[in-house]
């Protein structure tokens, strides 16, 4: 007696609801537990990544830029030979609708450590207290968070530097030092040894006399009207003899963190939608297969008189449940761990007080899309299934599949091989999905290793490019008189048109090793102007083309006739003779601001802006690479996870769909290992196909990475993908494939002989 007969007063809808909610769902859930878990997990991971990427990007973008804006982060900084009086400042501010304030800081060294103490500013670059209080006493100090955390210093602690004792009142940040490089030319931040501090204005004056300080002064300005910038800069040059100007866009301490959110967002848009679509397709296929496996039940409901719409809706609800569950879990996970993930993106920057909350838009999209998609797939699949006749459904016959099995009947191949081959061809959708998932996981691994190899290669070539001499001493001024030893050169940063990244004009010493730097195009001559490979690649400029550079102080333009391309992969630079640069700048012959030497020179640190030697460049790039490695390992992990879950899902399907055959093989006396050999090995060949298909993509991705590095980081990296990396990728993909098979062995072992035999008929 069925439910309708037992309860004639109930409508079909009520009966159906009763069945589905009280009985069928539980049974179906139990039977397909591994599917539900896998789909829920996949949805959870995808939703987590999507929500975190967009939430983190928005948080970083909003909070960093809000801090810069609220604290009047500078639009530019400049230095003038003629100091600006208060009246000058007031006049300029009023004329050009801007704010100007003098920036002062003292640098002192104690061993490896450097303390930079800022005089508090009131109009521009105002510091923000992140923890504790503002300094109120002359011996109070407020430290930056990175240094404090690296040295385990907390508000209330005592801090001693160069024999002077301070009381730490709080932790703070300046808007112009969120990326707190000691020198702008440093390749990396040194959180442990470089401290930034705020003290009171009186305390600042008092300190001058206590330690051997180097004081730096320049002006910072905030523009309210960008139309006035060029006029203002011209005035600075003409009336105040400006000799240095740097916009916030050219200042990495400001530009990098302010663009960090946008970069994450851009990267997220490449990977996340792709991952989301792939997951949705995979899950949709799985749901479709699950429904096909349940066609006997669909047939039964149909035979009982349930309407198509009711049955389809019933199955949609099944499919929607893991979608909702996965989405909710993904959002919960994003809520719990999203801020931690964000820290990975902004590890270079000072830790400000981020306000982390799940952004409603991505959360809503992630909550709705899987639900709608899974539900729709199940609905459409059920509708399609219901078009077949009820008897076929009840007998679990699938005429379409039978046709696809027709192959190799006359072959003398063993039945095991035939079984595997037919399994692959009888379910082309499933097979393509496995190949695609294996391809994708191989590709993710390959892309990660291609990145690693490319960056490794760049470190080698970059170190060579940056270390023509063992030691480079970059002075903080132009030296006119003293001979500090070594070979003298001159480096000056010029702007490019249309806000493109700055370019360094390198005036190389005569008869130096620079004459031997290898050329990609053209040959060296004394009067030539040679662009680095970075500019050539980025702007597709070659010998015979022209490049316009702009003096950042005078705004004078110089059109360079490119004589050739130098093999410098590490910087956007123009190489020319020392005389050419001296002539361009109009400074006296013999002036220099760089000293090159293969021997270590004894130059007073107060004269040096930064040092560059082969070891430190290698070490710094190595440190940078370490950070990069964690990203690479993250990608590899993602690849493996995807491979394990996808293969598990698909092979699970094979086991499920062959349950009766497995059961029969058991009855016949096949050992579990033999059955595993027949059923689970079906996809072995697909691992190889997926891997081989991903190989060319590995090389393509290496090229793409190089293009991205060239456009975004302004370096030239040669695409690299070594045989060793290829083998490691193969091993990783194979291992993750094996893991999913091992997980499925239990599933095969658990197939019951008695139960399966009862349902087996064709």
């Amino acid at each position, binding site marked *: 007696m069925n439910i309708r007969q037992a309860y004639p007063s109930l409508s079909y809808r009520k009966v159906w609801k009763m069945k589905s909610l009280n009985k069928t769902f539980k049974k179906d859930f139990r039977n397909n537990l591994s599917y539900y878990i896998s789909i829920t997990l996949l949805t959870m991971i995808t939703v987590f990544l999507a929500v975190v990427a967009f939430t983190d990007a928005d948080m970083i973008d909003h909070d960093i830029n809000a801090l810069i804006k609220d604290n009047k982060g500078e639009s530019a900084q400049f230095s003038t030979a003629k100091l600006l009086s208060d009246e000058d400042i007031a006049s300029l501010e009023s004329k050009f609708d801007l704010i100007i304030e003098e920036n002062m800081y003292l640098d002192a060294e104690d061993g490896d450590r450097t303390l930079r103490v800022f005089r508090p500013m009131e109009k521009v670059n105002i510091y923000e207290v992140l923890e504790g209080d503002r300094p109120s006493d002359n011996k109070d100090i407020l430290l930056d968070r990175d240094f404090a955390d690296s040295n385990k210093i907390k508000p209330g602690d005592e801090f001693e530097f160069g024999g002077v004792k301070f009381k730490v009142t709080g932790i703070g940040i300046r808007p112009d030092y969120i990326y707190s490089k000691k020198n702008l030319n440093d390749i990396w931040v040194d959180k442990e040894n470089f401290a930034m501090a705020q003290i009171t204005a009186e305390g600042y004056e008092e300190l001058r006399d206590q330690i051997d300080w180097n004081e730096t002064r320049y002006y910072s300005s905030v523009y309210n009207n960008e139309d006035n910038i060029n006029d203002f800069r011209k005035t600075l040059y003409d009336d105040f003899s400006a000799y240095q100007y740097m916009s916030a866009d050219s200042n990495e301490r400001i530009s990098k963190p302010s663009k960090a959110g946008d970069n994450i967002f851009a990267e997220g848009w490449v990977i996340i939608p792709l991952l989301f679509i792939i997951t949705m397709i995979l899950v949709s296929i799985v749901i479709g297969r699950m429904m096909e496996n349940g066609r006997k039940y669909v047939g039964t409901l149909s035979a009982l008189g349930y309407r198509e719409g009711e049955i389809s809706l019933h199955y949609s609800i099944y499919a929607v449940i893991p979608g909702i569950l996965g989405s909710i879990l993904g959002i919960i996970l994003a809520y719990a761990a999203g801020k931690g993930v964000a820290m990975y993106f902004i590890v270079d920057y000072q830790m400000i007080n981020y306000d982390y909350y799940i952004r409603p838009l991505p959360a809503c999209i992630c909550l709705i899309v899987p639900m709608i998609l899974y539900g729709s797939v199940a609905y459409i699949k059920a509708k399609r299934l219901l078009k077949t006749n009820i008897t076929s459904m009840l007998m679990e016959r699938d005429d379409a599949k039978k046709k696809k099995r027709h192959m190799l009947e006359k072959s003398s191949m063993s039945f095991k091989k035939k079984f595997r081959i037919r399994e692959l061809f009888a379910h082309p959708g499933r097979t393509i999905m496995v190949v695609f998932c294996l391809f994708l996981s191989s590709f993710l691994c390959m892309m990660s290793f291609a990145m690693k190899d490319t960056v490794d290669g760049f470190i080698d070539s970059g170190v060579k490019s940056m270390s023509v001499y063992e030691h480079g001493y970059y002075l903080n001024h132009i030296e006119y008189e003293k001979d500090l030893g070594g070979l003298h050169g001159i480096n000056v940063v010029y702007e490019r048109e249309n806000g493109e990244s700055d370019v360094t004009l390198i005036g190389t010493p005569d008869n130096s090793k620079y004459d031997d730097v290898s050329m990609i195009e053209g040959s060296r001559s004394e009067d030539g102007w040679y662009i680095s490979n970075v500019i050539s690649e980025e702007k597709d400029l070659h010998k015979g083309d022209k490049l316009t550079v702009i003096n950042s102080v005078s705004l004078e333009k110089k059109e360079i006739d490119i004589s050739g391309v130098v093999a410098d992969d590490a910087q956007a630079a123009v190489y020319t003779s020392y005389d050419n640069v001296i002539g361009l700048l109009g400074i006296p012959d013999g002036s220099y601001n760089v000293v090159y030497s293969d021997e270590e020179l004894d130059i007073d640190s107060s004269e040096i802006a930064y040092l560059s030697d082969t070891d430190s460049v290698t070490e710094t790039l190595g440190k940078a690479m370490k950070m990069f490695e964690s990203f690479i390992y993250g990608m590899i992990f993602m690849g493996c996870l995807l491979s394990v879950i996808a293969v598990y899902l698909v092979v699970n399907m094979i086991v499920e769909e062959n349950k009766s055959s497995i059961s029969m093989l*058991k009855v016949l006396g096949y050992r579990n290992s033999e059955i595993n050999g027949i059923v689970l090995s079906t996809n072995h060949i697909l691992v190889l196909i997926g891997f081989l298909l991903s190989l060319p993509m590995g090389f393509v991705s290496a090229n793409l990475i190089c293009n991205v590095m060239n456009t975004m980081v302004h370096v030239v990296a040669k695409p690299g993908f070594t045989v060793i990396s290829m083998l490691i990728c193969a091993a990783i993909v194979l291992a993750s494939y094996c893991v999913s098979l091992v997980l499925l062995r239990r599933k095969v072992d658990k197939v019951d002989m008695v139960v399966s035999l009862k349902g087996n008929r064709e």
Partner: protein
Amino acid sequence: MFVEVKNAVKQYGSGDAAVYALNGADFSLEKGEIGVILGSSGSGKSTLMNMVGGIDTLDKGTVTVDGEEISGYKKKELTEYRRSKIGFVFQFYNLIPSLTARENIETTRDISAGNGIDINDVMEKLNITSFADRYPSELSGGQQQRVAIARAIVKNPALLLCDELTGALDSRSAGEVLSVVETVNQEYNTTVLIITHNEEIKKIADRVIHVKDGKVISQETNEHKTSVSELEL
């Protein structure tokens, strides 16, 4: 005795929901005999066959086949037992749908430890050769059942267990299939145990066992054994 079941008990569920599929069943069969177990639906006859075939295990009692007491066997030992001694034929044939008739038969030949029968001989005897390259879905019920029998006997099992082997067939096909079983019994001296609710089939048995409510209610030797051709199916 070649097959001896003593005090077989099998319980499903527990407490108030406990159901005894077997409740102290006993029977025996000599080597080379055809035994027919008769009983209505739910009487426990399939459970009895599953125990003898090593598909399921008893809660109590013993099953001895060809001198081996299998009731104490672990999973792996039961697999080896089924592999070496037992041939199964089921009501719904249980052929592997993605394999042809020949390939289905090969599944057992592959695991017969050298004492198997030539696959072509079996196919010829059972009239399978003409449709050997067809898939189960392309065969009639009778043809499928013949393939299932060929698959069971190709490894030359000591005991052939047939569970409602004619249950899904028309009378003509049923006759053909039973003839095949009879031939197998005579040609290879294979002991056969047939489970059915069709009273007519008991006429070809050497021994008839009646099962009811999980117990063997009678066990008798058939003094008037007839051939399949004389059955009125």
